[in-house]
């Protein structure tokens, strides 16, 4: 392990103290196919003596069997772990490797070169402090070099090592080295990378890996390992204000309520004023709890449990911030998105976005432009295909705390998840909040839902009646409201036909309009629930996804889905409004049950079969449900 054997032998304890205080550098290697990335890493492991006898003997065996270097060791085989890629002779995924020198510990992400696996390179770069970009001295700066440099810069890596490799193949030519260095710097100047160091290498022969090579007397800079050991990198966000997203609320007993999370920015001490987002409520840090006792101070990178002086409501996904310098709060952003899936990103399609400890409903606008990685030009586009990078607006279903990626990597990054496959399909960086959402601050109100519930003497909720036209929803809804009113509950009935005369006057009956109609009703119901009322709605609401949407707008337990189940043949036979007849004759388009589907509720809270009970009994059943579930008391 590159350690002075004598110190290990003589004073292991002293050696360990030294070893324990080493710093850590995470870096990635990237470049085109056959630039020699795996060989370079294999060489670093070999030179830092991280390889042990059995690994070396396995390598010798593998080199004979699969190697491309004749009788010599093929270092690439050390890192190409999966059998599939051994057969193809290429690296197809991100591999993490570990080695230690006298001064530092290293975690290396070996990332693939060819185009279709760019997503893996972005993955490797997202946790790296430095990037080693390989260039084949015979080929110079290629499209892939530019692509990878762009992504490295995009992901906020401030240090680049340009490893000009295979210099032995061009006779260790200084002119070749200088020409590539010049061309690269010209391109990189547009990317805003602060530190670029070019090193002439032969990973295969070992030139300038650990020490200055006699083959390149004209080169006076550091060897690769020397540079990796000495380069100073500091974490983005560490110097900034306190940020701690709450991952988990720790409640072992009624008198302890701790908020667990990793500090992603700044420091925290007992007595610090903090502001919790999105609520905006403030408090003071009481203790910084850990298994090893309370801390006087904790810093970015540490996982801790905070307790606060005041009892305020905090849950997973909230962010504890420095009171004087809180994060932003918004639900619309300009972002850069790297798409990672074969199915292109579609503007307007619902996705999930994971940001900190929040998973949110999300959709993207049409890309403002794509970025051509060869020349950084902006191109017009309607979608984002696999490996494309573009700038798009992102809309979330609620406001979340964030910082710009440039200020704090962990507070400004997100992944995009497909709702059906659950695959991670994209990754993105937040640049800034869009003004319309930024200027609407969420007011921390003094009188909240709970306070209103106390005054009303009951909890708020939505009774969502769904069923075919003519199934009896409105009749039952009316009786429910009458019974609740008699119990002194504050109620409001939103009826389908009535809403169509006002709130949704401009909407028709296409699928898209039905979706919008339910969204509006859901929003109105949400406000009324917030106002403390029991809202009764009677709409056909034929689609599961929109009922789910309405459910998601209110709190857990506040949505009671009631399936008013009357068979189609019965409602059609009754046809009290004559609508089914019209629909069957084709005079009425998109009529639910006739030429537009009704998706039966999968697990409604209540299922009323109207053929088995009269409307009065059905309504009593609904009121009983509310009493049983603690929404209200029997006495009212």
């Amino acid at each position, binding site marked *: 392990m590159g350690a002075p054997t004598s110190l290990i032998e003589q004073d292991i304890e002293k050696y360990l103290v030294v070893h324990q205080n080493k*710093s850590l550098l995470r870096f990635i290697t990237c470049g085109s196919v056959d630039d020699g990335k795996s060989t370079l890493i294999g060489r670093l492991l070999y030179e830092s003596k991280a390889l042990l006898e059995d690994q070396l003997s396995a390598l010798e065996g593998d080199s004979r069997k699969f190697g491309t270097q004749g009788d010599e060791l093929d270092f690439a085989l050390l890192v190409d772990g999966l059998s599939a890629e051994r057969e193809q002779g290429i690296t197809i995924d991100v591999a993490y490797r570990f080695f230690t020198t006298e001064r530092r510990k290293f975690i290396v992400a070996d990332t693939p070169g060819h185009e279709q696996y760019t997503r893996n390179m972005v993955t490797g770069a997202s946790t790296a402090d430095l990037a080693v970009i390989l260039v084949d001295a015979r080929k110079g700066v290629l499209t892939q070099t530019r692509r990878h440099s762009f992504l490295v810069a995009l992901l906020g890596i401030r240090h680049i090592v340009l490893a000009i490799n295979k210099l032995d193949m061009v006779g260790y030519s200084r002119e070749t080295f200088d020409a590539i260095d010049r061309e690269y710097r010209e391109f990189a100047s547009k990317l805003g990378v602060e530190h670029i160091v070019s090193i002439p290498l032969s990973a295969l022969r070992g030139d300038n890996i650990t020490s200055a090579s006699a083959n390149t007397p004209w080169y006076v800079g550091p060897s690769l390992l020397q540079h990796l050991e000495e380069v100073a990198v500091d974490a983005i966000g560490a110097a900034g204000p306190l940020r701690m997203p709450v991952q988990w609320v720790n409640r072992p007993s009624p008198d302890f309520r701790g908020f667990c999370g990793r500090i992603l920015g700044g420091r925290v001490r007992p007595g610090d004023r903090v502001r919790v987002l999105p609520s905006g409520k403030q408090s003071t840090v009481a203790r910084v709890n*850990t298994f090893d006792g309370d801390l006087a101070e904790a810093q970015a*990178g540490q996982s801790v449990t905070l307790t606060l002086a005041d009892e305020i409501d905090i849950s997973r996904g909230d962010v504890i911030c420095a009171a004087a310098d809180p994060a932003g709060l918004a639900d619309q952003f300009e972002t850069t998105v790297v798409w990672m899936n074969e199915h292109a990103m579609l503007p307007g399609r619902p996705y*999930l976005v994971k940001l900190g400890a929040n998973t949110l409903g999300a959709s993207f606008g049409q890309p403002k432009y794509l970025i051509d990685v060869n020349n950084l030009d902006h191109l017009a586009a309607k979608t984002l295909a696999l490996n494309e990078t573009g700038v798009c607006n992102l809309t979330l279903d609620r406001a979340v705390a964030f910082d710009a990626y440039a200020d704090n990597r962990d507070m400004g990054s997100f992944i995009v998840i497909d709702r059906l496959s*659950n695959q991670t399909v994209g990754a993105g960086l937040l640049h800034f909040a869009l003004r319309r959402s930024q200027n609407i601050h969420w007011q921390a109100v003094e009188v909240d839902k709970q306070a209103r519930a106390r005054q009303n003497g009951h909890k708020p909720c939505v009774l969502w009646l769904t069923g075919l036209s003519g199934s009896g929803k409105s009749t039952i809804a009316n009786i429910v409201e009458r019974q609740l009113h008699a119990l002194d509950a504050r109620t409001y009935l939103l009826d389908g036909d009535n809403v169509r005369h006002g709130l949704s006057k401009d909407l028709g009956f296409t699928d898209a309009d039905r979706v919008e109609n339910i969204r509006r009703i859901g929003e109105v119901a949400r406000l009324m629930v917030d106002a403390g009322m029991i809202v009764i709605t009677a709409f056909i609401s034929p689609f599961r996804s929109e009922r789910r949407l309405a459910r998601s707008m209110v709190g857990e337990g506040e949505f009671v889905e009631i399936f008013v189940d009357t068979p189609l043949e019965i409602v059609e036979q009754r046809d009290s409004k004559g609508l089914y007849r019209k629909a069957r004759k084709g005079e009425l388009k998109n009529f639910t049950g006739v030429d537009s589907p009704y998706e039966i509720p999968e697990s409604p809270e209540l299922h009323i079969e109207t053929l088995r009970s009269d409307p009065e009994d059905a309504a009593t059943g609904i009121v009983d449900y509310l009493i049983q579930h603690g929404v209200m008391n029997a006495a009212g």
Partner: protein
Amino acid sequence: MSALTHLQRLEAESIDILREAVAEAEHPVMLYSIGKDSSVMLHLARKAFFPSRPPFPLLHVDTTWKFKVMYEFRARMAAESGLQLLVHINSEAERLGINPFTHGSARHTDLWKTEGLKQALDQHGFDVAFGGARRDEEKSRAKERVFSFRSAQHRWDPKNQRPELWRLYNARKNRGESIRVFPLSNWTELDIWQYIHLEDIPVVPLYFAAERPVVERDGQLIMVDDARFPLREGETPMLRSVRFRTLGCYPLTGAVPSRATTVLAIIQEMLLARTTERQGRLIDHDSTASMENKKAEGYF
């Protein structure tokens, strides 16, 4: 306040992973294999949820062929941690009397461990399982995600892994599918031992050198732990000062000659030694891509 050391960063990352997985899981479990990595993982879990107890049980997929001392240690750790310990034994393997001597290491491992693990996860309906695997252990593990998705058939598809960026772990799955979570992904063997040393974490005594009855077979020192060990012609167990760098089923775990009786001496020996810990594991030697194949089938 000084910068965090490498071990402090690793610890914080592991705690972060443990909490995130628990927050996203419906029914999590920690796979407990009794070895040193499990000891460290359990210790980290106690830190992560302190002052609460870790909100999940421990699951040991037992092969009935572990060292006797390991069973004693397992009982002790369950009692000390206060966590529920579930032990699963594959009744089919038990009925067939599967053992490494007559059935070979491949079949033994497949039935007792791979199949046993799948059975246990299905039976209890666990959707998230913590494992102590490290990326530095073996080549195919170097590419493993921290949150590693498994199909409803428990299969791992190395070519279709979810990209894992920053510290944003995608824990979403459909019913029946599961996620294996590896909080120790970025630890090395040296990190593990150094942490055990610093935190004074209890480990199975087999890691320390002692006089033990062993026979030399196929270039490996195998301990004769009980009467089930069929001695070959001319084999006589000899008492030798040995220890184990890795612990599995006793007939499949090679010992190394050693005089290291303290954690410090182990670290010293490890730093001076020139072989990796998995060398003592016979299953890796079955074929070149053996671990990858096992993992695709559902082995941890």
